[in-house]
């Protein structure tokens, strides 16, 4: 089975589980949907490669939308902070509800990581043999980190870039300080580690 099929099957199974069973982390339905949407858009990147001047507008629109949605994949990793909903006081014995929710949240995060790696692999394939490939990938990673910061702390969604562009830019510039830059830096390092560890092993040639 190709990695592409695995990603789709596991997504629908995960959503089904969240819909059918009681869990504290039902917000993962929406968060993982956005991560999955970014992955599906990355699968369409070859279709939007620019072949002639007439295609520039449509392709740019698609690629910009994809870039705006792409941070959603790594954003899910920061949802791990919601483990604090529970005490995990293991000295008090096994509390099944806690570990059920732990399984739900962590499996969602693993899924998002899988999507992130597949997505970055698609981006790499899209860039082809460009000598700027590593630089563009790094730029995308930094943009994703900024996206995670915006989503997590300023509570903006990708769509606000379209609906309230000036407010978004103003809020970002206004909120940038030593701590936020450090956070963006840590998210960047985290993504570089993930890419370095997993990106080579997941290739388009392997059926993604």
């Amino acid at each position, binding site marked *: 089975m190709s990695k592409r099929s695995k990603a789709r099957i596991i997504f629908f199974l995960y959503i089904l589980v969240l819909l059918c069973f009681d869990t504290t982390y039902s917000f993962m339905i929406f968060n993982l949907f956005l991560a999955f949407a970014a992955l*599906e858009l990355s*699968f*369409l990147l*070859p*279709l939007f490669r620019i072949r002639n001047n007439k295609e520039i507008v449509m392709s740019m629109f698609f690629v910009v*939308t994809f870039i705006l949605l792409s941070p959603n994949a790594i954003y899910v990793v920061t949802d791990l902070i919601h483990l604090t909903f529970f005490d995990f006081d293991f000295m008090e014995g096994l509390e099944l509800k806690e570990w059920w929710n732990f399984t739900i949240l962590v499996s969602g995060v693993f899924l998002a990581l899988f999507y992130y790696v597949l997505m970055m692999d698609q981006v790499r394939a899209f860039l082809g043999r460009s000598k700027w490939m590593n630089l563009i990938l790094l730029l995308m990673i930094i943009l994703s980190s900024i996206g995670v910061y915006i989503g997590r702390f300023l509570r903006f*969604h990708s769509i606000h870039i379209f*609906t*309230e562009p000036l407010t978004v830019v103003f809020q970002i510039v206004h909120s940038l300080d030593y701590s936020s830059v450090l956070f963006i830096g840590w998210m960047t390092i985290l993504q570089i580690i993930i890419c370095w560890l997993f990106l080579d092993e997941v290739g388009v040639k392997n059926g993604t």
Partner: protein
Amino acid sequence: MVHNLWTELYIVLLLLAAVVIISQCYITYLFHKYEQAKIWKVIGILFPLGLNIYIYQIIKLEKRLNNFLQIASMERRDWRTAYLLVLAQYLLLFAVFGLFASP
């Protein structure tokens, strides 16, 4: 302020309805063009929000076009338009969501 919100929502919903109708018709036309089986035309018109093209992509399109790596110019233009219509639907849906979820 409230009046503005409802006016914006009304405009976005109207736009969304228009894009959904255009999208359904266009994707059904493409299914008619590239597929013989009637089931695809039914799926094309009945399944909304890009679900029609998504099912077709998984079952047929990706295999036929080798994950969009081998595609003729004419067909490429058709599918690019179809996917952009679907993308427009989601951006408008997000706009509806964004109107209510502003921080």
